[in-house]
């Protein structure tokens, strides 16, 4: 590891334009490609401050700063294009959260890294629309929040209310959302409006450890803890009227439901198992990385393939999980308004994944190439007419659902052609942490956080109030800054802004 002063480090960074910085080769050893990151002036300060702090003598422990992590990823074998940091980037295990990187499938040395997917495999956001308006929901929002809370178990160690046995789980892991469809939990149109149609075809439950399955079984249909939530939101602003109408959003004040969740303990176990296995593979294949946390294996090695198949199973788990919660949300709304989910027009607008690795074709240097695209804390954002997006969004581009933090607003963006060229069709995924969990616990008081939400008129139900300060808006970057940066940089386009009126949380 090179030790340099902050000013020396800055020599490797170059501001290309108002929203993008370049990380030159040499910033970290053995970089195969350059890095880059997207920021505006406020996010830029956070980014550089993090680097500055790590340059202070005696700074040890914790994760490396995000910029360093981007550069370390750029040193992985087989990476193509650039290692890209999105505006909501913050340090994580190995890869920063908000880092995307693509690896050439035709290069035998290319790697897959569980750190590049994250522990919460296929964590993602789903948005349901309704034909209700704020005036219909405001009077009953407390009851509705309670009803949602009763239907969807939340918190660490929560258990779901959809009965599952071991065989059901095996089938769900293989079939993803098709399982939910077969069992009648969701509608045919839900599958249509889901990334990958809610099923990774290469999933193989046999590659998943018993331990992961044991952890996962009781957790299907639960929200989980951490930054996961279900929110009742109202449309606050429509930037792109036509695209919004394609999504069934016609006017301000319309009520939507956002579900942010992942593969729970199941995905976590799959990632942990893979990291152990890969450490051995790295020794055998003599793969060297700048950071021990960047454990990886060649895509075509047994370990690489095992991971990809288990990861796909975890992705399917997450889709079944979100589908189960879709079912429960529809039930809760139908009971509250004494009607059917059909009559409430509770369609899925879209479902995005933001912790996943997928095989995609991209044009690199004028040639079409097959790549393994790692997106960790980054959302796919494909442009109009891309064959992998639903027919309903062929003219608008893929909807990108960006969840804010508890109490702040959320956004829907659409994918652009420019994003396809610059970032392999990727954009931000949320606000992104500004303070670490430990730091926010030290600095913030949970009562204050709850009071503040109350003042904003947001109904809230939490399983563990003492963890609330980890997720307080103050602990995060401003989601509006993040989204505006993506919009200004042209890698995705603003479409709708929503604000929450009720939150349920782990």
């Amino acid at each position, binding site marked *: 590891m090179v030790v340099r002063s902050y000013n020396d480090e800055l020599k490797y960074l170059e501001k290309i334009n108002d929203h993008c910085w370049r990380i030159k080769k040499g910033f970290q050893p053995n970089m195969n490609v350059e890095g880059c990151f997207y920021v505006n002036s406020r996010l830029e300060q956070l980014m550089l401050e993090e680097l500055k702090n790590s340059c202070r003598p005696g700074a040890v422990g914790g994760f490396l700063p995000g910029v360093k992590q981007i550069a370390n990823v750029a040193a992985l074998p087989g990476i193509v294009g650039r290692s890209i940091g999105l505006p909501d980037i913050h340090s994580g295990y190995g890869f920063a959260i908000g880092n995307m990187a693509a690896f050439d499938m035709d290069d035998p040395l290319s790697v897959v890294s569980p750190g590049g997917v994250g522990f919460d495999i296929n964590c993602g956001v789903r948005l349901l629309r309704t034909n209700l308006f704020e005036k219909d929901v405001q009077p009953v929002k407390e009851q509705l929040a309670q009803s949602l809370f009763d239907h969807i178990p939340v*918190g660490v160690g929560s258990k779901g209310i959809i009965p599952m046995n071991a065989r059901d789980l095996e089938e769900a892991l293989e079939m993803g959302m098709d399982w939910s469809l077969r069992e009648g939990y969701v509608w045919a149109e839900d599958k249509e409006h889901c990334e990958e149609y809610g099923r990774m075809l290469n999933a193989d439950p046999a590659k998943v450890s018993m331990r992961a399955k044991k952890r996962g079984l009781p957790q299907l249909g639960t929200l989980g803890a951490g930054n996961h939530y279900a929110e009742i939101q109202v449309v606050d602003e429509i930037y792109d009227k036509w695209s919004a109408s394609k999504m069934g959003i016609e006017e301000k004040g319309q009520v939507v439901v956002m579900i942010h969740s992942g593969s729970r303990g199941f995905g976590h176990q799959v990632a942990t198992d893979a990291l152990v296995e890969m450490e051995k593979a790295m020794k055998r294949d003599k793969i060297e990385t700048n950071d021990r946390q960047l454990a990886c294996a060649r895509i075509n090695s047994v370990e690489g393939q095992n991971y990809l198949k288990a990861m796909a199973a975890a992705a399917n788990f997450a889709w079944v999980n979100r589908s189960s919660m879709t079912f429960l949300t529809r039930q809760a709304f139908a009971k509250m308004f004494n009607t059917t989910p059909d009559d409430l027009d509770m369609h899925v607008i879209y479902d995005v994944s933001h912790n996943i690795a997928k095989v995609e074709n991209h044009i690199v240097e004028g040639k079409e190439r097959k790549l393994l695209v790692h997106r960790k804390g980054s959302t796919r954002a494909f442009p109009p007419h891309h064959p992998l997006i639903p027919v309903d969004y062929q003219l608008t581009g893929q909807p990108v659902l960006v969840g804010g933090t508890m109490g702040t607003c959320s956004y829907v963006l659409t994918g652009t052609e420019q994003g396809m060229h610059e970032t392999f069709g990727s954009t931000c995924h949320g606000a992104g942490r500004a303070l670490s969990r430990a730091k926010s616990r030290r600095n913030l008081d949970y009562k204050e956080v709850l009071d503040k939400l109350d003042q904003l008129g947001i109904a809230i139900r939490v399983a563990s109030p003492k963890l609330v300060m980890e997720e307080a808006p103050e602990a995060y970057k401003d989601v509006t800054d993040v989204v505006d940066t993506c919009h200004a940089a042209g890698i995705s386009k603003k479409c709708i802004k929503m604000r929450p009126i009720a939150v349920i949380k782990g």
Partner: protein
Amino acid sequence: MLKQKLAALGHPSPNDVALSNRKEFASTILWLEDQKIRLYTIEDRDKLRNLQDMKLWEEAYLKYCSDLSMPALDTQLEQLTWIIGHAIRLEYLDDPEQYGSVQAEDIGGPKRNGTATVPQKVQTIFDGKINVDDKEFIAAVRQLATKLQVPHHPNHLLQLEAISRIVHERLSVTAKDRKPITGTPFPFDKGNDVVAGTDPKLDYPMRILRLLQIQNLRQLQTQINETIVAVQSLTANPKTDTKLGKVGR
């Protein structure tokens, strides 16, 4: 394409034919009649020679079109295309053997075989039961096309396919029962999509083609959804058991 056809017929200045000019158009028609088609005797062509008095010429042209039994075509371009096509056909029929040895691959054009001109749909429907090249059949297709205002195409079978599409989309029982589409229309040329950035002329037709493609995809997706729903009626049995639920710490 028109210019190439004119050049093939030996027109002295195919590159200078400007369709925007009616006089130019008239003189091209006259040239075709004089040199190639020769429907009228030389004396009868006099009226078509009235290039100085366009009013007289237009009258003569109207009669000429009906004498040629040209189908009702709206634009100047369509009419000229048809007349040139007619002239080429006559030229070919004068001496078919001369062209017998010419093969598409020899001149680098797209490869064609006999069946390529018959659209597959039409082929499977008639499957040899009807002689699709029968004069009466062709006349009936043309008549239908005129009635439904389907643009002319030299291959009557392609035209038949277009007719079938219109009947299916607009006139069939299911189409009549279909609920009118509600909601805000999506403007044709205002999407987020870049279509043909370099050539604005290509933009419009490409948008149309893409919309047709999207329409096809939508139909396919709807069929898939209907199939899933049909299967769901057999397999679906969603259950919940609130006793299983446990809220975390």
